[in-house]
């Protein structure tokens, strides 16, 4: 197996973890938003949702930077 295919497989496995984690984070953050009634609880819920999206965005960006680093490194090696 060449390095390009191996990197693609690695990307798929890491993206799989990210998709599951992302769906989990967003759904977990959204469930209390629909369930709670009070204003403060609603605000806390909204902040939790925003936090979940920011965390997910940061993870995605870190994933992109890592991929870019590996791609450039492999290009330099070949």
């Amino acid at each position: 197996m060449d390095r390009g295919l191996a990197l693609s497989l690695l990307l798929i496995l890491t993206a799989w973890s990210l998709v599951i984690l992302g769906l989990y984070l967003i759904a977990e953050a959204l469930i209390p938003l629909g369930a709670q009634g009070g204003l403060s609880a609603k605000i806390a819920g909204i902040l939790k949702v925003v936090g979940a999206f920011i965390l997910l965005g940061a993870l995605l960006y870190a994933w992109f930077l890592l991929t870019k680093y590996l791609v450039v490194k492999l290009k330099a090696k070949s």
Partner: protein
Amino acid sequence: MNLIIVLGAVFIIGYVFTDLLLRSLIPRLKSAGILGVDVHKPNRPKIAERGGYALVLGIMISQIAVSIAIRKVHGYSLTLLCSTLIAAVIGSLDDMIDLGGKLKPALSLLSGFPLITSGLLYPRPILPLIGRARLHYVYPIAAFLLPGVFSNAINMIDVLNGMMASNSIIILLFLSIISIISGNYVGIILTASLLGPLMAFYRYNKYPAKVFAGNVGSLSLGSCLASTAILARLEASFAITSIPLLITGFMIIASVGGFKEKKEMVLRPVEVDGSIIKANPDPRAPITLVSILTLDVGKEEPRIVLESNLLFIISGFLAVITYLLLT
């Protein structure tokens, strides 16, 4: 038993209709001068462009056949058809007047309208680790955005002969398998009904291609796949089966800094030497699935398509595993 016979008939109708359309359309496109250059071949042949019209009409016929044969799902199949047709109109406009890298993705979001106005959305999708989630606020927004997002993602993998069609067939096959496992009646019908037109199109689009889909084909197919996943409540399975698509879309957008057309990119992601495709050695070149697959070894077009198929198959198995173990 009746369902199998009906689905078999719909498959044959979709396949034969698309096949006959392509047979008559390809020479007409050639004689009208609607041609695209196959840049990954040594002699750079000119191939009939916009064969996606036949694919869209094939999908239309199979969805009409499904809605007549199975009355229970006629609302679903007609909504799917509307979403596909809106994307086809936008793709067709882009083929004719070139909408540009920003207007095309923005307009393609319109293909989500039939979904949110159909009354068929169920904002309680089954998600891994969570089970049935309540997403009353976010779900309609996601359902509106997804067809447009996926039509552009599919558009981004329509770069090599047969790549878009074969990978879409794999996505549909895995969604069919998960629908069968979960007893999802709508899922089985919608996914199976799309296989006929798509397989017929693949026959003419595979290496060496006799026809290209054009934006009309790729945008409508992407919208069609995403709408199927939403209407059949296969959202999470679709997201996981489409991971290679998400990788390509995300990497291109992140590495070129936004939505840009192929011709707007200063550096090409790959270089072509005869029939060998290899990643552009420039570190600033855009990152795509094809450039990752050809990072250290130059490869021929059919091999790259085969490897992309392998990646989609692995993602499909991950979707099945996720459904069985984590849902």
